[in-house]
């Protein structure tokens, strides 16, 4: 009654050889973790980092919330391993300019800051470009409102001495959370972690938040520990009002612990310093990267939309994976779990050294193709390109290539096709068939 959904075909698409070579874009903690793990497997790894140093966002961190180790030492050791490994090449000041081809035939053009270019042919690409942080919107004159990474630095530098800011002692600190980024738990984790340290150093700390996001291993215990040490916690529905008061800042919020509205008073927290967590945002360059790599973007310009059936670390293209803060800012432990999941995906892909296309796959019948680019535009997996390969085409003019006459037509790369059939249904010339 209607044409068949699939056609069957005797000859299966040929397997594609995959060399153990992987390109990693972004040398943050996720990028270097993936690099180290894959290098241990004997994979040749190239890290393309746009900055001049490895480490990414973690370079601004000094304390873990869940273990006593010093972050910079841990990071330094890791970077040393990665930079010293024989089969890892680190390109600094490097940007991906082009990515052509498909799984098994990727051609990546990388330009470094000195203007040198390198062409790589990786079997898989891992995107770990992280996110950027914007300074918290401070008060008009910017004074005495600092970001959370500045507070980390202050604490790391003060060592055993009392905390001081621009030469003045700091006695009272207030953290204000959730003015932006109310879906990211890093701010709560950071604030409580720093509050405990500050309180131990003799400061009086208050944390003002909409919700305390303690959904991380060990966080509820740390929260209780902070309360035990005398850190004050206030929750708000309306963000607090800040004003200058003497040498400090006054943070005013209604005291919600008092139930009766008429008795509810406004609490003023007089603070020497106010800490407002940086806002996380997608790197504007991600847009350009996604254009070059034909990747999809999701909410706020971050990589990939949130889609349960398309599990976390996958991108819309076969052979390209993503992990870490480029998709969603998370605490380090969760980012690293993703990094290891990517390692697993890459290992599974490279396992055996060949990729055999799985059924079904779409195929264009070149003579029928009108080169209208509909399928190229609509394939969600960027599996179709227009190439000169047909020996006959009713619609488009032939071109000479090596003395042979070749016609232009759309071509589906079987290694990249997911077999959804969207192109088949959309082709106005009915030139595409889905083969089982």
């Amino acid at each position: 009654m209607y044409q068949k959904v699939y056609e069957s075909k005797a000859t299966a698409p040929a397997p594609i050889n995959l060399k153990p070579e992987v390109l990693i874009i972004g040398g943050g903690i996720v990028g270097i973790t993936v690099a180290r793990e894959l290098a241990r497997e004997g994979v040749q790894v190239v890290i393309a980092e746009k900055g001049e140093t490895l480490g990414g966002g973690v370079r601004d961190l000094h304390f873990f919330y869940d273990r006593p180790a010093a972050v910079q030492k841990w990071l330094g050791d890791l970077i040393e391993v990665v930079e010293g490994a024989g089969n890892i090449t680190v390109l600094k000041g490097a940007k991906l300019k082009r990515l052509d081809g498909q799984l098994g035939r990727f051609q990546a053009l990388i330009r470094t800051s000195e203007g040198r270019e390198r062409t790589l042919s990786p079997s898989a690409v891992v995107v770990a470009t992280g996110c950027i942080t914007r300074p918290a919107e401070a008060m008009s004159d910017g004074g005495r409102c600092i970001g959370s990474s500045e507070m980390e630095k202050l604490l790391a530098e003060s060592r055993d001495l009392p905390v001081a800011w621009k030469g003045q002692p700091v006695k009272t600190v207030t953290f204000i959370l959730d003015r932006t980024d109310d879906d990211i738990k890093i701010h709560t984790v950071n604030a409580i972690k720093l509050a405990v340290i500050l309180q131990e150093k003799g400061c009086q700390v208050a944390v003002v938040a909409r919700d305390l996001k303690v959904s991380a291993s060990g966080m509820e215990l740390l929260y209780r520990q902070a309360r035990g040490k005398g850190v004050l916690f206030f929750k708000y529905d309306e963000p607090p009002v800040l004003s200058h008061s003497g040498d400090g800042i006054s943070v005013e919020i209604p005291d919600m612990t008092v139930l009766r509205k008429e008795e509810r008073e406004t609490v003023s927290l007089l603070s020497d310093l106010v800490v407002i967590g940086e806002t996380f945002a997608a790197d504007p360059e991600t847009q350009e990267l996604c254009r070059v790599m034909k990747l999809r973007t999701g909410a706020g310009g971050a990589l990939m939309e949130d889609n349960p059936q398309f599990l976390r670390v996958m991108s819309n293209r076969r052979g390209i994976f993503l992990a870490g803060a480029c998709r969603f800012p998370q605490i380090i432990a969760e980012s690293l779990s993703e990094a290891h999941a990517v390692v697993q995906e890459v290992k599974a892909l490279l396992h055996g050294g060949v990729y055999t296309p799985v059924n079904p796959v779409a195929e264009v019948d070149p003579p029928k193709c009108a080169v209208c680019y509909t399928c190229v535009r609509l394939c969600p997996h960027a599996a179709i390109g227009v190439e000169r390969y047909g020996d006959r085409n009713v619609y488009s003019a032939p071109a000479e290539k090596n003395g042979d006459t070749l016609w232009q037509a759309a071509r589906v790369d079987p290694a990249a096709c997911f077999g959804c059939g969207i192109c088949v249904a959309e082709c106005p010339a009915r030139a595409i068939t889905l083969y089982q």
Partner: protein
Amino acid sequence: MSTFEPKIVAFCCEQSGLPAAEMAKTLKLKIPDNLELVPVPCSGRIETLYLLKALESGADGVVVFACYEENCRYLQGNVRLKGRVGYAKQIMAKIGLEQERLEIFHVATNSGVKFSEFLMQKADQLRLLGPNLGKIA
């Protein structure tokens, strides 16, 4: 009502509709008697023509079981489908076929109960509408 038992053609996305149908079967839920299931790899595979052909060649109602939006295994299939069903409905309006004869219904793998409930409702609705006058067969 008379003994009219409407024929329903249900296109089932293999990522959601088909497993839901299987779940309905294992749970032994009621489904209409005169039902034809057409598995498709993704609802995005369904051409506008399939929908109209099905109506032309004997179906009283056509249902597409697709994944919920933002949960397509191929990211965009159900979005493409929506456009095509809209187009098919325009054509149906022009030739005087009732809009109720074509519908998208979103399910997940675990929506066996919804699958059966929806089809039973659809069968009732079609029974009231009467046979599809557009069919040729």
